[in-house]
C-alpha cells in the first residue's frame, strides 16, 4: 500500500468511526444533562474544545480535565467533579479504539507510540466535537439566559 493509499484509508476509517461514535458522545451529554448549562457552562465546554484542538499530546487533554475535576472538588461541587472524571474515563477508553483502528490500517511505516497518541488525540477531538454540539443542542435557552 502506498503512502497516499494509506492516508486515504486512514481518513475514511476515521470518518466512519466519527459517524459511528456521534451517538455515544450524545449519550454522554444526555446522561449529564442535569448539569447543563449551569454547573457545566458553555464556556467550559468551549474551553475543552480549544484544548482538545490544540493539544500536542493526549496527556495535555487529560491534564486539563484533571485540573477541572480538582477545581470542582476544592469548591465542593462533587457533581461537577464527577462529570470531568466521567469524561476523563470516556476519552481514555478511546485509546483502545485508536489501537484497534491502527491495527486495521496496515501502515507503510512502523506505527509507534507517536502514531497511536496522534490518533488517540484525533478521536478525542471528534468525540468532544460531538459532545459539545449535542450539549448545546438540548440546552434550554431560558436557563442559559439566566446565567
Amino acid at each position, binding site marked *: 500500500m502506498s503512502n497516499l493509499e494509506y492516508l486515504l484509508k486512514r*481518513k*475514511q476509517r476515521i*470518518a*466512519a468511526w*466519527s*459517524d459511528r461514535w*456521534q451517538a455515544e458522545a450524545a449519550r454522554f451529554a444526555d446522561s449529564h444533562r442535569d448539569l447543563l448549562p449551569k454547573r457545566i457552562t458553555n464556556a467550559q465546554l468551549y474551553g475543552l474544545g480549544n484544548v482538545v484542538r490544540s493539544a500536542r499530546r493526549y496527556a495535555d487533554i487529560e491534564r486539563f480535565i484533571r485540573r477541572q475535576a480538582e477545581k470542582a472538588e476544592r469548591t465542593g461541587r462533587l457533581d461537577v467533579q464527577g462529570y470531568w472524571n466521567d469524561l476523563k474515563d470516556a476519552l481514555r477508553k478511546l485509546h483502545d479504539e485508536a489501537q484497534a483502528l491502527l491495527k486495521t490500517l496496515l501502515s507503510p511505516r512502523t506505527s509507534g507510540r507517536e502514531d497511536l497518541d496522534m490518533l488517540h488525540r484525533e478521536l478525542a477531538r*471528534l468525540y468532544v*466535537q*460531538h459532545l*459539545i*454540539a*449535542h*450539549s*448545546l*443542542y*438540548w*440546552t434550554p*435557552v431560558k436557563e*442559559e*439566559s439566566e446565567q
Partner: protein
Amino acid sequence: MSEQSVQEVALRVALERAIARKSDEYDRRAREYADRLTSTKLDKTQVRGLETLASTTDKVSDITDWLKLRVGRDSKREGWAKDGVGRDLVTELEGLRRDARKIVDELRVGEGIALAYPVDPDLERQVHLRLCREFLKHLAAHFEYLKAEQER
C-alpha cells in the same frame, strides 16, 4: 477488464442512478424547509455555508454537529432554532440513513450485482452522506430563489 471490475462499474452506475432518483424525490421536501427558513433571520450566506460544509466534509456527523451548534447558540430563536426548523432538519438528515440502507440493500440483492464480491462495509455511510448533500443542495437552491422572490 476483469469480471470484478465490470461488476464494480455496474455497481457504481446502479448506485448513481439510485441516488439521482432519491435526489429528485427530495426536491419537494427540501423546498418546504427552504420555505420555513425564509421566515427566519437567516440569510443566503448561512444556508450556503451548510451546503458548502456538506459538499466538502467526509462525515455526516460534521453536518449534524454544525446544525446542532447553531440551533444551540440561537438563544433568540430567530435563526436555526426558530419554530424548530433546525431540529427538524437534523432529524430529517439523520433519517436519510434509512434511504441509504435501502439503496445499498437493494443493490446487494435486487440488481444481482456484487454478489460474488464483498461490498465496501462503509458504503451505506457514504451513500447517506451523498443523500445529505443532495437534500441540502436542493434546500439551498430553493432558499436562494425564495429569498430573492421575497426581496423583490
